[in-house]
């Protein structure tokens, strides 16, 4: 295992602990927006998809790269917008009071 790979594993393990910690006490009322919001975060795969497309050789790789970019962008944009729409409603009620 190279030093770079060990670094990546360290990041993975620490990320997992933080993931558990930050949402360990969420009220049920927010489960749906939380699921939707975390869903948008895994859209970070868009960074990987763009990298793959930029380095693609041949028609098959380019086609798959374009497909990956489209899918990842739907995930990112749709995820954040739909979560914001849900949470906007919670906000509207508070400002009224």
């Amino acid at each position, binding site marked *: 295992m190279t030093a770079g790979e060990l670094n990546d594993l360290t990041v993975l393990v620490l990320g997992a602990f933080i993931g558990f910690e930050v949402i360990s006490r969420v009220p049920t009322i*927010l489960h749906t927006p939380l699921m939707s919001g*975390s*869903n948008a975060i895994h859209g970070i795969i868009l960074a990987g998809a*763009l990298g793959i*497309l*930029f380095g693609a050789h041949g028609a098959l790789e380019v086609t798959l*790269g374009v497909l990956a970019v489209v899918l990842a962008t739907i995930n*990112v944009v749709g995820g954040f917008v739909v979560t914001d729409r849900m949470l906007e409603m919670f906000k509207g009620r508070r400002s009224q009071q």
Partner: protein
Amino acid sequence: MILAALAARQVAVDIAYLVAASLFILGLRGLASPRSARRGNLTAAVGMVIAIAASLVGEHPSAGVVELAVAAVVVGAVIGAVSARRVRMTAMPQMVAAFNGVGGGAASTVAIVSVLATRGGGATLASVASVLSVAIGAISFAGSAIAFAKLQELMTGRPITYTAQQVVNALLLLAVIGGMVAVAVGPTDRVALGVLVAAAVVLGVAFVLPIGGADMPVVISLLNAFTGLAVAATGFVVHSTVVIIGGTLVGASGTLLTKLMSDAMGRSLANVLFAAVGSAPKGAGGAEGIPEGATVRSGTADDIGTMLAYASKVVIVPGYGLAVAQAQHTVRDLVRALEGRGVEVSFGIHPVAGRMPGHMNVLLAEADIPYEQLHDLEQANDEFRTTDVVLVVGANDVVNPAARTQSSSPIYGMPILNVDEAKTVVFLKRSMRPGFAGVDNPLFYNPKTVMLFGDAKASLAALVAAVKAA
């Protein structure tokens, strides 16, 4: 000189990734509290923009590819934004499933391309990560597609079971594992890769088919965690720290959220995934616990409206029926009409009311019902003994006393709202058809129960008129 410039640029990119990862964590943290949730979501979105912008620095795209990439981003952004803006609040669960599915598909596709591009090389960390990502991403994609189809009612929401299903699923899992090993250790073989993808897709479908509609939120949450893991694995393949962090955060938080959800239903995750609740409905009308010859009493909107108007305390228990009928605004009108007469009104909300935990709170928030009036399971259960009328709008399983009393019932052990402790229970239902769990409700036959048949919105509107006239 050039090397120094390159190094400086790499440091700048790494700092940007660090900032982005911090914003993801802050964003997730924000999402855990109602006050900071919207800001949290925006924080994570800003982190996303920074991370993607940083990842573009240092790329050397071949000719013509930049245009393709821009076009692909525009197409994806338009599809994502338009569907997110247009979707009705009631269809939110299937929308989340769809967005999760495309994320899993993207992770799988990125890993497929990198396997194609590496032309073999033995079982390194990267090759192990890439086959994991191919498989998990494809399972998540296919499973989410089935979840979407079930919730959108493109296919039956009931569990689909057949003989030796567990054996078939186990064999599929073995096929996926075999495919992963073959692709990871062997020289790049397109046939093996194709078999792996196909087996993973079929496993994703087979895995979600036997799961019923009521359990779907838990499955969507689990698939969300799967996609997170697939994305994290892809991060190893494309050597991107920020992709690893983003994926891992979702994988871990999604796993915990899945557990919290199955706890809210009083079930273990294994039970949700493998028990196929409601697949074998009892013989026509022959549910146990219902006395022979028991009858159902139905009332008119006028009678029930009068009863509500002269009550001193009313609790409304909303369920998916309210959501389907888009009746959240009409129920608000009923609340206002009752409050105008001095009736104390609150809502008793089961953790899994609607089709997703917290989904009902979103719908009622849309109708401007104050947060203080929305009581959770424990709070509501303390109140039923002193409640005159409980109005159950399109819910069934979450108030079914069989969950307390019948050890043979598939919903036995699920925490329920004890509406049967109130003086009178009114059910607003379309018909006598059982709910998602496919079990009959003995409470329908209780002498203190009155049924008001019809579409939830029309029934509620009739009740508003009756309360105003009383």
